[in-house]
């Protein structure tokens, strides 16, 4: 006889099977010298969802998403993006894949010798090779409007606040219409109000651009606002999975530790 928990688990599995998997990670391992950062990572990102990865600093959250776009080479395991094994891709295939994936860095990583407009035009001109000035201008204006900074085009990154830099970083990533977004600590270093604004912006833009996202964070407020599903990382592996409310009620000590934050 099936218990309620079994039924719920079955329903979840069925729901997962119904969804299209965008990123599939199996038994991912990564070490730096003798420091084994990722011990056995298994993860699925489904189309259209916002997946939050919660974990303490130094647990290898950022390493995981850097392995997805091959900014770091994995030691072993399997990473499939859109059904293709990332490790087996040629340079040309990897470039095509990277165009389909947006990556927002913790520091926003704006090119500081260029104005905001040049930053936004860079991927259009150098990656998509667009030549039509009218289209480039339209895309720049649209994306600036989307992130709520329509008048920032001629400013230099050094003239922007932390929150504005994150918004422009987000705009530069979204301007090429990626299908998947990887956010590396999008609210780190921001005050509570700006942090919430950025989290709400992530949700708004996810709906507008129809992206699937992995959001790496240790900020509970960001996780609550942005997540459809959360996985918790501890000691180089994932220890729990569920919605924010499910995990908040968890009896597991390691999971509870995250939700005890003030």
């Amino acid at each position: 006889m099936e218990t309620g928990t079994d039924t719920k688990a079955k329903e979840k599995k069925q729901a997962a099977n119904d969804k299209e998997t965008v990123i599939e990670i199996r038994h991912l391992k990564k070490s730096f010298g003798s420091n084994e950062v990722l011990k056995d990572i298994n993860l699925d990102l489904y189309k259209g969802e916002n997946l939050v990865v919660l974990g303490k600093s130094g647990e290898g959250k950022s390493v995981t998403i850097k392995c997805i776009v091959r900014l770091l080479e994995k030691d072993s395991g399997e990473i499939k993006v859109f059904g293709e094994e990332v490790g087996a891709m040629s340079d040309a295939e990897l470039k095509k894949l990277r165009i389909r994936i947006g990556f927002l860095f913790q520091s926003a990583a704006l090119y500081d010798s260029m104005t905001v407009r040049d930053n936004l035009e860079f991927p259009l001109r150098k990656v998509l090779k667009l030549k039509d000035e009218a289209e480039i201008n339209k895309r720049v204006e649209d994306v600036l409007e989307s992130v709520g900074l329509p008048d920032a085009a001629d400013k230099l990154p050094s003239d922007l606040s932390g929150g504005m830099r994150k918004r422009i970083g987000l705009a530069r990533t979204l301007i090429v219409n990626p299908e998947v977004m990887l956010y590396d600590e999008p609210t780190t270093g921001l005050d509570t109000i700006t942090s919430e604004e950025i989290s709400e912006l992530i949700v708004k833009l996810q709906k507008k651009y129809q992206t699937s996202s992995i959001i790496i964070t240790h900020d509970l407020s960001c996780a609550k606002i942005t997540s459809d599903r959360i996985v918790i990382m501890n000691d180089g592996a994932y220890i729990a999975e569920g919605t924010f409310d499910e995990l908040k009620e968890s009896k597991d000590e390691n999971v509870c530790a995250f939700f005890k934050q003030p």
Partner: protein
Amino acid sequence: MSESYTASRNKFLEEVGNQTSFMFRFFRNIFRGGFDWGELVRQCYIIGYKSIGLVGITGVILGFVLTLQSLPTLKDFGAESYVPRMVAVSVVREIGPVIIALICAGKIASSIGAELGSMKVTEQIEAMEVSGANAIQYLVVTRIIACTLMIPILTLMADALALVGGYVGNNVGGDVSAVLFYNKSFSAIDFVDLIPSFIKSIFFGFAIGFVGCYKGYNSDRGTESVGVAANSAVVSASLWIIVIDAIAVQLTSVLAYN
């Protein structure tokens, strides 16, 4: 002692391997499509045009000082008429290219090392790579080619200005007409002097650009590494210039003057 020697040897070999691999990436990316000519022109402007003042002043002073230092000695032998020839030959063959390359190593290699190093620290290079752009082609290839093109031109300019400095120096205590000074200078210089010197400065330019880019692109994380990248770029580029010069002089002696 033995462990320390092994560690140093391994580090040296690793560095040689990394530099070779970086050079291979540079050459491979020259011939790839999508080369950014606009960025190359911008780098030529930054590296070439913005160094004109420093290189020009260095050239003038080089000729001026060389003349003033050699004039009294040559006077003792009654050979002061040889000053223009001596200045021309020594500046064009050796001192001009080497001094200008060392000056440029200090200005350009350090600037490239610090710029790319800070881009690495602030994840700008990773952002460029992950966006699908070819960071090596955009950042490295353009800078190395710009250095390779601009340093020889700057050297020629400095050589010419050194002769102006020499003329001024010769007239501090004497009275030599410009026509006579330049006639004597140019009579001493042959194509066999100019060509090896020009080729040498192309290699100097390549070394300055390559070392600056390598040190900056491969710097570690942390703000300290930006300083380390800039500093080691200057030291390594200067060392490379001296080594290339030693090889070039040997080759020139064998090929041109025998």
